[in-house]
């Protein structure tokens, strides 16, 4: 319902600049959904999500400039390649838990940061890395959604599909296996759960979502900048996901909105965007101290109290 309303109105109401901001917000919603489910359902902290998004974006641009395939096929390839990278990331991480797992994913993100800033993103140039100075070839969006407003609708649709994929997992065997793993590995083994397999599956799904969101971001902007995918950005997204709340779609929306829309608003109002960092820090403290389920948990509690009163 909400998705439908948003689907119809936001692209119409928002002015040109804001449509672009909503497009990138939408991409980060998908990526955040990946980290959120890893954290809420498996208790695993992944600090490499935005770096993985960079891989998806890189593959998307590479495909776009190298071949003449439709957008959707490029997007599927971006998702699949990033899924495999998610698995690679899972390899060393499978034996680890908690802080060590977080550090491994952060190191991987750091490594990718170096690669992205060294080789940059393909823009139509020659060779494997495909980079040419200054000018860039155009990026082909999906034929159905070449205007910004239509492309935003396309992304909202992708978010809905992404949420449905996660929900489907939660209601079937993988979701139950993940819940047992989160309880404890002993509980998982006692349930016959192949822990390594299902952890790898979770990394794969999170990687896939990152890949799709990176691919969509490439489509939204036409060009990608290595600065977008710095390791620190992955940490920021994770922190904001804690602020928003990791357990449901509302928390993910809040996280991505804080990540993209708040700095843009500040820009609009002529406030230094770095101020948002201070606000994020305060929000994180607030969430850790008073709201174990994040802002979304507080909002849901508030509404359920209100509706009980009436």
């Amino acid at each position, binding site marked *: 319902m909400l998705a439908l309303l948003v689907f119809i109105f936001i692209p119409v109401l928002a002015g040109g600049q804001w449509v672009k901001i909503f497009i990138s917000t939408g991409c980060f919603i998908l990526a955040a959904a990946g980290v959120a489910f890893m954290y809420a359902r498996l208790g695993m902290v992944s600090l490499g999500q935005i770096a993985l998004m960079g891989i998806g974006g890189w593959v998307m641009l590479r495909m776009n400039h190298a071949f003449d395939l439709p957008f959707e096929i490029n997007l599927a390839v971006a998702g699949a390649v990033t899924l495999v990278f998610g698995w690679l990331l899972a390899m060393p991480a499978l034996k680890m838990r908690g802080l060590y797992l977080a550090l491994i994913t952060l190191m991987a993100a750091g490594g990718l940061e170096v690669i992205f800033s060294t080789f940059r993103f393909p823009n139509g140039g020659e060779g494997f890395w495909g980079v040419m100075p200054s000018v860039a070839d155009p990026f082909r969006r999906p034929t159905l959604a070449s205007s910004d407003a239509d492309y935003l609708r396309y992304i909202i649709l992708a978010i809905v599909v992404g949420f449905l994929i996660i929900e489907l997992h939660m209601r079937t065997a993988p979701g139950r*296996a993940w819940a047992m793993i989160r309880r404890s590995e002993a509980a998982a083994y006692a349930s016959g*759960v192949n822990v390594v397999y299902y952890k790898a599956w979770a990394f794969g799904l999170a990687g896939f979502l990152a890949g799709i969101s990176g691919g969509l971001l490439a489509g939204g902007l036409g060009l990608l900048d290595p600065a977008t995918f710095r390791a620190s950005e992955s940490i920021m997204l994770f922190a904001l996901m804690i602020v928003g709340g990791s357990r449901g779609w509302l928390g993910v929306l809040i996280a991505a909105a804080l990540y993209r829309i708040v700095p843009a608003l500040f820009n609009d109002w002529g406030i230094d965007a770095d101020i948002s960092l201070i606000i994020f820090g305060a929000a994180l403290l607030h969430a850790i101290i008073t709201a174990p389920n994040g802002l979304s948990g507080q909002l849901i509690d508030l509404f359920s109290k209100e509706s009980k009163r009436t």
Partner: protein
Amino acid sequence: MITLNNLTVRFGGVTALDAISAQFCQPISGIIGPNGAGKTTTMNAISGFLDYQGVINWNDETVDDLNPFKRTRWGLRRSFQKEQIADDLSVLDNLQAIADNLPLSRSEKRAEVEHAIESMSIAPLANRKAESLNAYEKRLADLGRCIIGNPKIIMLDEPCGGLQQEETDHLGELILKIPELTGANTLIIDHDVDLISRICTETLVLDFGKRIAFGETANVLADPKVKAAYLGVEEDAK
């Protein structure tokens, strides 16, 4: 029949289990002993959670080559000293989580889960989130998990720990039904000697990782060595 043959577990320099041998021939058998005797360690070895020396058999089958989750798929079930059900799943999903991993068809899995719910009389709890259950209800759900899918060995680590007397009595009745429900061999750890003597035909007594007695429960409990081990604990407790 569960056979332990020279089961030995070491943690660094500490020998937690020292060449334990025992043949549990009865449908329900007990393992008792003072705190730190090695009871849970015995179950963890049978689960394959730790490295051990020695051989573990069930009838003619040996489980030593199987890793932990394959042991569950093979037919090992267990509950833990501290219950390990997933709080964010419903009771039904907690049961389904085991059925998911068994080599059964979809309809067989559903039938197994329903059978377990019926046997434990927990239908009213089936759709409740596990986090909303009290300690007793969690133990019932845990026991329900253990009888899914024709298990061969069931191990219950202090199933009645922290329960009221009536609840313990009722859970004891349910445990007594396990043999006819499943045909599995059941091992039970508990500190409640009344419970053990009521439901376990045979009992193994451990102390400091050593077998100090094994046999018919009444005989074992009358053994002076066993009394001494328990008296020692009681004195320590004071």
